[in-house]
């Protein structure tokens, strides 16, 4: 597959959106994963005569997904992983780029109005047998 085709493939699988989610070809680790992949299905997609036509590329991938289910799924997963780990993607989704530790996250305490609700539940008769 040529570099241009690889970018086309990345953008079909992970198109991004107008609200800031980048297309797959703009995420370096996605392109690295595609470039370094030895999955035969990538070459098969590139060789498909219809992949040269923008309006037919989606159908090529639909066909590949039907005919090579697990291989195709593995390919998509191998790109989804670096994509949703990428800082710009996390930020575009409203999430932070730092890992969970060491800072952790703030979490709201039990709301004050629920104290009364709990008292009412506690006042009920037992529900165990």
């Amino acid at each position, binding site marked *: 597959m040529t570099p241009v085709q690889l970018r086309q493939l990345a953008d079909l699988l992970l*198109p991004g959106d107008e609200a800031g989610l980048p297309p797959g070809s703009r995420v370096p680790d996605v392109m690295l994963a595609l470039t370094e992949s030895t999955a035969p299905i990538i070459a098969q997609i590139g060789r498909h005569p219809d992949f040269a036509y923008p309006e037919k590329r989606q159908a090529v991938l639909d066909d590949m997904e039907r005919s090579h289910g697990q291989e195709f799924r593995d390919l*998509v997963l191998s790109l*989804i*992983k670096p994509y949703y780990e990428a800082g710009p993607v*996390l930020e575009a989704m409203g*999430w932070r780029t730092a890992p*969970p530790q060491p800072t952790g996250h703030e979490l709201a305490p039990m709301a004050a109005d629920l104290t009364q609700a709990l008292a009412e539940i*506690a006042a009920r008769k037992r*529900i*165990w047998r």
Partner: protein
Amino acid sequence: MTRKRQDPVDVVIIGAGCGGAAFAWQLKRRAPHLKIVCLERGGWPDPLRMPAKTMRWQRAIMEDWASNPNLRIKAGGYRGSNDYPIDEDGSVFKSLMWNGVGGSTVAWAAHFPRLHPSDFRVRSLDGVADDWPFDYFDLEPWYDLNDEIMGVAGLDGDPAYPPKRRRAMPPLAFGAVANRAARAFSDLGWHWWPVDAAINSVRHDGRDACNHCGPCLTGCISKAKSSVDLTYWPKSIALGVELRTIAIARNIEIEAGRATGVTYADRNDEEHFLPAQAVVVAGNGIGTARLLLASGVESPMLGRNLMFHPAAYIRGIFKERLDGPVGPVGASIYSHQFYETDRARGFERGVHLQLSRENALLVQASRLSPLWGEAPQAQLREEFLHTMPILVLAEDLPEAHNRVSLTNAEERDGLPGVKIDYRISERAQKSLDFGLARAEEILKAAGASRTVRVSPAPLTGWHLLGTARMGRDPQTSVTDRYGRCHAVPNILIADGSLFPTVGAANPASTIGAVALKLADQFAGEIA
């Protein structure tokens, strides 16, 4: 292969997880003169290798820190869990476990409920399955002791249980999700309560409070989450129990109906024979059955009656932003409104409803269908940070066709291969459907704009139970009420395999309590 004969010991415990750890500590406390060795196939969990400080923490959930051992094996590498493959093709649910010091408490959610008193008497009360050979109140002192050692955050006064001792810590933080869900339960007039969690809500027992980082199932770097490598094992080792890691028990040697010791392989694959007066097996509902079957223990029910707790999820999608993948994943609020039998529902026994937390972004992206193109990305846009999941656990009842068995293969650990066969019963499916319908009512009452059902949820097979059940009759049970195998009385079992029935609530609290009780009884016998 030549075996090296070692100096004899009094007791060999196989497995350093929840049951084995509690048993070792209590037995050594009660009988300090005993020489006790625990063989653990894995190593110690290493917080430095846990992924929560790295940017690959999401990927780790699906690969090298996955809860399913087959996925970890596929990912390669070794993180402390010395896994063996499990043939799960015949099972709706995939087995989840951790095979190292701490057992599955290393990778658990630390939701720590007890069973209800009725769970021990299902035959007497509801005419199904079998009663346990002891009841809740017999077990209560050991529940209390286990709570004390593990450290429980929670709140007194829950009407779903008999009064319990004051919880050591206040409940964990709720977050926007639990606050919203709790109001919905109350609006419907249904029971809800903060969960009992084996997680520090404040600094406790020398360990920090939880900082709500999120990925509890890939190990707890901060050590706020209790796991028995942090609670029982340091205490047991200080008392003089010897814990040998990377020590794979391959065979319990049996002569004339008595166990004489254990053959195990060390980290160099050299075999040793460790003679012992008694052998205690605590390898979970799959590992225990595998070893006992491989050792030739003959018992008609061994490996049968595998129970999981059939599980399903329903996710509510909200317009408002909620918490996202933060906070202890399984430990906020729960409801036992529908836990006890109501025959009008058309099935016996009940369901456990538990508020959960949102999946990590990558994990959720990998589970969508379709997986690629505009549609899943648009769906993630709508759902991420806007999701409230509710987990439904149904009560499993014992069925002999649900089982653990050996394959003809020999695995790399020198033991026969193992497979599980499990299908959801019609009764359990009815309970799951009932629970999902109730959960959907909650989500609607909480303001969800739509809901998504995941039923069944295959990657929920944490609770591996029932494959060496207690009972009186050797034809219908594997051990007696003291955990002693009918076929080989100096082999004891001290894990969830013993459960004759399982209730609908998470089992770790009961596994620990039962192990403590059995160790107490055993100490009186062997002393």
